């Protein structure tokens, strides 16, 4: 997927570790260099939230998971750190706004972040 990225090679150069890709974004939101989804951010790494894509492709306004993720504080610009994965790899634990939240990879996959170099 990452080989077909159309733009922003400078961004990729800037960022020390672009997403290595389990990101399964829909075609139109194809993963850009320098961004990735929260599930593949890597343990201990911090990212800045770009947006939350809908888990349901059609009815975006009724997507209550997306709404709740935002209401829990995952807004544009929020810094979020992946603390750990659970022993079985799913769910993951993240830290944001001074508290700890766990969510499944399935939800983390909806959160697009720009990694911040440590």
């Amino acid at each position, binding site marked *: 997927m990452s080989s077909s990225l159309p733009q922003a090679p400078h961004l990729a150069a800037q960022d020390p570790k672009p997403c290595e890709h389990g990101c399964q974004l829909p075609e139109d939101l194809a993963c850009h260099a320098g961004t990735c989804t929260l599930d593949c951010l890597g343990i201990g790494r911090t990212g800045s939230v770009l947006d939350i894509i809908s888990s349901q492709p059609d009815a975006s306004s009724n997507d209550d998971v997306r709404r709740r993720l935002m209401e829990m504080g995952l807004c544009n610009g929020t810094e979020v750190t992946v603390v750990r994965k659970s*022993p079985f790899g799913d769910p993951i634990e993240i830290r*944001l*706004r*001074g*508290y700890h939240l766990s969510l499944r990879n399935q939800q983390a996959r909806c959160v697009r972040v720009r990694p911040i170099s440590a």
Partner: protein
Amino acid sequence: MKSYALVGNPNSGKTTLFNALTGLRQKTANYPGVTVEKRTGRVNLPPVTSDSSRTSAVDTSSPEIQIIDLPGTYSLFWRSPDERLAVDVISGHLDDTPQPEAIVVVVDASNLQRNLYLLTQLIETGRPLVVALTMTDIAERHGHRVDVGALSMALGVPVVPVQGHRNASQRDHGIEQLKRALADARSAIEPDWPLPEPMRLAVSDLAPLVEPCASRACLTPRALAERLLIQGTTDLSRSIVPDLDPTIRDRVEKLRANLIAAGIEPMKEDIEAHYRFIETLASRVLIPTVDLRVRGRPQSLSPREQPATASPASPASLPSTDLRSDRGTLPVSNPSPPDRSIHRSPHRSPTFSERLDKLLLHRVFGLAVFLAVMSCLFISLFYLAAPLQDATEGIVSSLGESVSTILPEGVLKDLWIDGIVAGVGGVLVFVPQIALLFLLLAVLEDSGYLARAAFLMDRLLSAVGLSGKAFVPLLSGFACAIPGIMATRTMESSRDRLRTIFVLPFMSCAARLPVYTLLIGAFFSTYSAFAQGALMLSLYLLGIIAAFVTAWVWKSRSREASSSFMLELPTYKLPRASNVLRVVGRSTGAFIAKAGTIIFALSVILWAMTYWPRLPEQKSAEVAQASRSIWTEAVAAASTGATAEEPDEIVVHGVTTEEELIEKELASAQLRNSIAGRLGRAVEPVIAPLGFDWKMGVGLVGAFAAREVFVSTMGIVYAQGDEENTEPLAAAMLADRYPDGSPVWTPLIAINLLIWFVIAMQCISTVAIVKRETNTWRWPILQLLYMNALAWVLCFVVFQVGSRMF
């Protein structure tokens, strides 16, 4: 009477505060979503001073008020049934609860930003508010303190720091101030949310138009305008404003279409505007306590000097006058990006909880600790409880004997010994074990570990179609299915919730424990304690396996996308003795109350059913005669068989004298003739293929009221006619024989009966609660049929295979 609702995020300390306010004993724990129902308590307000009554927005003529404790919610857009309840009470949509006069917003100071999000939503309801700031001690340990005066000034509502959990000697930790501040509750200043300009204009445009509908929707006009822009005039918002004018509706749709065309998504912008406001606010009211640099504000007050209560109505109490300029100007006219150092701080040292989680959530140690914790829980249940249990047994039996010496011979004495002591006493013996189980669960819950357990177990549980959030309900199910089923209200996905409710009764509840203990003690006492423990453990595992297989089959048969999982991992807290004891006291009290009422009544009824109708005189004579001839035959057989050697002791049907034999046969004939005996024999054809006799049938019928009644039924059935009641129940059961002399009870039968108790659904209370929680008879009936059919099939296979093998 005025009522005030306690509203806040899960785990923000609402219930602890509620306890401190009302003194009412009730359950709290450190797991998000412990309160799943509303609870009310009463508070006497301190006398109103003339100053506060003058400026009060709420009439305080009545000194006694009602406090409603609501389930925690992160947002007023509810996702789970418990959140919905909170939202419905706030907006006054619940028939049995009038809309609260004002809302006490509980804000966790150690997790300020996310807690303030709910507060910003409550501001938009326009309801009078008071903020209770909890966990200020944890916030200070995390390195920041909340400037109460500034927060109060910015919001325009009273803010009171409280320490709900410090009681007794340190009683007055803000509770009295909070009570006084209740009278001062007022609608907050509605901030000018930093929305993108087109959306701000659209909101300003709509707000005056929708003003007439606003108060009925429990929103300010601006908030209602925002809500309409977010949701459109779909069915969803039609439920809030059913009578929206068609011209306004068109206007809404047009504005909304314009925004979306301009690339503005109203929902996202709304939430982000709230958080931008919160970030600005937090950067102003949070004062670092460890970081020495104070960002551009005079930090003249030490925590000691800081006023305990800050009310916007009394500016004199504010720390410094320049704070007043914050008011109103705070939200939008701050074009510089908000200072996010609160949640950025990259070089912060890890908190205690984070360091502990490194171990407790470690991929190897974490699981090891989890297994160790769960094993300790169950092992201590048997080892710690045993001496207590013996003590209780001693008390019960000595009480029974001492009273029976006073009672005259006759029906009353029979009722006392065979009905009440055997029935209620037999169940009371298990109180220590049950109290211990509740105690251990309460300690785990209160510490915050259960949220971690849910995190660890989510992957495994989701594999069988459950979820990490099912962990706490399932664990509670080991105490009792009813609180477990109630606890599923915290689950957002209705499918996951239904599945959890359906399989939850497979967890071996405390009521099954007496049955397990009785049967294992009676039939496997010759084995080592380890083997007995292993057998007990395998019973619990059998229940878990049955639950998982059921959930898995259900999941794999219905093609569905897996549901979402979001769970906060709260800060660890030391379990508070008062809190834990409160929970144990309540749960154990409920069990004893059950023993004193339901089990008492059932014991009396069951006893009566075994006592009447009495055997007719003529029939008794026949039985006595038959017994005598059996005895004579046995004596004759013994004397011919053993001539030369010493005469063997003659044992017939487990007894050694003729009188005992007659007495036993009479008692058996009496029981067989009684109503219970007839009932037992009526169900015998159904249970005979499982190896159960009609006496067990009587017990199983009784167990449908409550499982532990089986023990008391067996006590009554086997105590019948045994005037001294000296023979322990287990020994009596072992001595029981079929007419052909073969034992009624064999280890195989005992195992089978144990399997029956693990699997079968035989608890009317559970059926009732499932009906209530699922709102239909379909699920409880399906559950009843499924579980009992499964139990029957399993027992049938085990008995038929087992009896051919041994």
